[in-house]
């Protein structure tokens, strides 16, 4: 039965020492640990959140940069093709121009040649005509030395005129 009766001395010491233990540990012990652990928990949660955000942002940036790269690539292709086109155009234009110019030069030359040729021909003709007139004059002069001859001539001419008139 003595086991079930609390001893006054033990009660006193228990109250005292347990009181001291509670005072020390409940004031300077456990709250410090709990506070620190909870702060750490919060810190980790925040860090995770921030990391997640950074990760998301990085992903965004990645996809954005990919889009930009794609665009740039497209642009590059476009510019290149445009440049090629322009180049071809320029070359062909230049060619055309050159052709035209050459043609023109040729044409001019041809015209000039033609003109010169015609001039030469005309010159020759004129000379031939002059010559033939001279020759004809000489021939006529020799032929018309005699009177009958002259009369013959006049007659024939008149005939000819008549023939042509009739």
């Amino acid at each position, binding site marked *: 039965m*003595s*086991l*079930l*009766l*609390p*001893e*006054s*001395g*033990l*009660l*006193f*010491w*228990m*109250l005292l*020492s*347990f009181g*001291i*233990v*509670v005072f*020390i*540990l*409940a*004031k*300077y*012990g*456990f*709250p*410090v*640990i*709990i506070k*620190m*652990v909870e*702060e*750490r928990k919060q*810190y*980790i949660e925040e860090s995770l959140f921030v990391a997640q955000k950074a990760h998301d942002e990085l992903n965004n940036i990645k996809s954005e940069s990919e889009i930009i790269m794609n665009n740039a690539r497209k642009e590059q292709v476009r510019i290149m093709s445009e440049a090629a086109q322009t180049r071809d155009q320029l070359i062909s234009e230049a060619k055309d121009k050159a052709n035209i110019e050459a043609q023109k030069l040729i044409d001019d030359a041809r015209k000039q040649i033609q003109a010169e040729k015609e001039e030469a021909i005309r010159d020759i003709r004129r000379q031939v005509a002059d010559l033939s007139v001279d020759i004809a004059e000489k021939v006529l002069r020799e032929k018309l030395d005699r009177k009958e001859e002259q009369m013959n001539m006049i007659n024939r001419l008149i005939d000819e005129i008549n023939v042509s008139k009739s």
Partner: protein
Amino acid sequence: MSFYQKIISLILFAFICTAPLSANESDSHSKKSEVQLNVREFILDHVSDSYEWHITSFNEHEISIPLPVIVYSANSGWHFFLSSAFHHEKVHEGLFIAKEGEHKGKIVELNSAGKEVRPFDISITKITASMILSSILLIIIIMSVVRNYKTGDYQPKKGFVGFMEMFIMNINDDVIKPCIGPKYRRYAPYLLTVFFFIFINNLMGLIPIFPGGANVTGNIAITFVLAVITFLIVNIKGSKEYWKEILWPDVPLWLKAPVPLMPVIELVGIFTKPFALMIRLFANILAGHSIVLGLTCLVFVTVSLGEAINTSMTLISVIFSVFIDIVELLVAYIQAYIFTMLSAVFIGLARVEPHHK
């Protein structure tokens, strides 16, 4: 180390652990016939308090640590001396330890009528000393853990500190928080202290040699104080709704109006809750100590039954002692856990808010 080696070393360890008890018992070895009678007293002697911390007997020589005796006697005033003054049943300053009667084992003095009466006795007894030792140990352990948290960085802790953190946070998050509810923060430090106080005292009680072995949490005075503090917190911090549910509960009128049947039951309930706390812890730890001691006594009880039986019973006793010791290790945790959890539950129940219908 193989499994069998472990088992063997465990058994050897158990032998070593129970050795002081056997040494203690060896002086009664000569009085074989009385052994059986003595078992009960032997166990009661070990689980109850004493004025000196008995370690072992060696060659008929008692080895024990004397503890200070602090006594106030109504007729002779204060006395301070070491309990070694009582050695060999001496009477010191009119005080002596009663050998029988209702004050058996306690310091008494003779009053004018020649009757043994107890003076006011606040001696540092074995249980007190053990409790103070555990308290100091607990404070050292927790404060050394705390020191690691004052660095202010959020580095996770390793080793023992990490283990203690896990332990503390486990009790805090899984026992106190869900049992009390949202405002658990105010009670968490106290309940954690209760948990670790009970736990360390339980563990120290399991160590059979000097710094441990005292039946601290198996003493009703210790559990009484713990239960009273819980009782005070529960009832002082009780909400209006808590008192309303006790004094004017939500039951049919005839249960509370002319004869306050329910209020009386509820009022009794206020006291039975901490009472159950007190008895549960006390009885569990006392029983654990008694079983281990009883099993150890098996060795000495069977001495008179012949060598073969004695040897086999010794083996059985050791194996069972090891088993019970491991169980007690579990009980040490479970009882601290239950005490804390139920205290938290009672506090949580006393903080009820009005039910919204």
